[in-house]
């Protein structure tokens, strides 16, 4: 690996940082390479870009907890300046064993789901009242920001953009009873999470959602005008509803274990190599153990198994 590749990989792994922070970190490490003048030695000393990114983001998370403490001390002062309060970083954390089900619902936000050792929710650019994060007695962790947000996305002096940003950490290989994820107009990336759930519900309005490695039981997908991309496995009967959006499912397993039925409007449908487009209906009497029931208006649904 050379310096450019290293910096590029580092950049790709700093998902949870804002653009400014990312640029700051990249500047620091580019400088570091320049000063040291021995790329291979620096790469050896810094460790893999993934590990370095983890150190950077983890330390940031700790710093955020610290920032929260000082926030409560100087509360009176900040209440006068609502904008400042709105850009405060919030941080919540829950142990792996305490959470049994997950309900995530975001209206407009940039959401990143990453893998870690416990459940944690971190936010920037969101008023503390607008983000609801709550763990009920029966283990349902609710995170939503459905209250109206500052849609301006600009700081009061217009000097920088403040996009509401939420970072959710899920423990790797977490087992959940129910997993619900709803995105309104936001952008949600969850490429690296590895979880399993017996029941799921994934909905996208006009946003963009990328999910990786979900081992699911029955999962229902709904996609309005957005973009939904899913990787993992499904068991039992699952529903896929697609309006004008695009749904892409990459499923593990044997194509022969899956059956489907479809109602198609003007859209496109693809099931491995079988293609259908235009108005059609396909019923399937041979329902197998894993079944997908697809309803597609004008969008496109692409299911790849294997």
């Amino acid at each position, binding site marked *: 690996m050379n310096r450019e590749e290293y910096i590029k990989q580092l950049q790709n792994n700093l998902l949870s940082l804002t653009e400014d922070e990312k640029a*700051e970190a990249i500047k*620091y490490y580019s400088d570091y390479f*320049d000063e040291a003048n021995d790329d291979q030695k620096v790469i050896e000393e810094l460790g893999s870009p993934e590990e370095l990114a983890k150190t950077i983001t983890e330390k940031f998370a700790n710093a955020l907890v*610290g920032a929260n403490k000082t926030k409560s001390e100087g509360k009176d002062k900040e209440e006068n300046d609502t904008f400042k309060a709105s850009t405060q970083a919030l941080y919540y954390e829950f142990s792996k064993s305490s959470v049994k089900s997950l309900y995530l619902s975001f209206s407009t936000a940039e959401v990143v789901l990453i893998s870690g050792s416990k459940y944690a929710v971190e936010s920037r650019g969101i008023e503390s009242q607008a983000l609801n994060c709550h763990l009920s007695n029966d283990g349902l962790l609710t995170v939503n920001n459905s209250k109206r947000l500052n849609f301006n996305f600009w700081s009061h002096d217009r000097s920088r953009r403040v996009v509401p940003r939420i970072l959710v950490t899920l423990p790797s290989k977490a087992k959940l009873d129910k997993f619900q994820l709803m995105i309104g107009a936001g952008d949600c990336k969850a490429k690296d999470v590895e979880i399993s759930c017996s029941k799921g519900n994934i909905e996208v309005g006009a946003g963009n959602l990328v999910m990786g490695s979900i081992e699911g039981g029955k999962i229902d997908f709904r996609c309005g005008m957005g973009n939904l991309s899913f990787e993992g496995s499904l068991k039992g009967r699952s529903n896929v509803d697609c309006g004008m959006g695009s749904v892409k499912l990459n499923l593990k397993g044997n194509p022969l274990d899956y059956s489907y039925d479809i109602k198609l409007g003007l859209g496109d449908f693809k099931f491995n190599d079988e293609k259908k487009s235009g108005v059609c209906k396909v019923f399937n009497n041979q329902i197998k153990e894993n079944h997908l029931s697809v309803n597609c208006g004008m969008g496109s649904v692409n299911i790849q198994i294997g």
Partner: protein
Amino acid sequence: MVFTAGSALLDAVVLSVVSQQGTYGYKITQDVRKIMDVSESTLYPVLRRLQKDNCLETYDMEFQGRNRRYYKITSNGMILLDKYRSEWVTFRKGVNEILMGESQ
């Protein structure tokens, strides 16, 4: 080093290194690593945190045709460093008394 340094001591050492003169990331890392066993990757988060707490400031200055990012200490940082220094004096005295059998 057999003794592990906590994060407060690391903060104190970094602040002190920066307080002596405006300096840059790589040099700070080398200076700190002369006396403490910390990995190269931990220094950036420390600098960034101190910067966020308004203890350090950065500025860019040209060096051999490129912009080098320098760190300097702020008045907030000086106050914190003073606090760390007086804490250190007390701590060192206590340790010396017990560990080295020195009594004053």
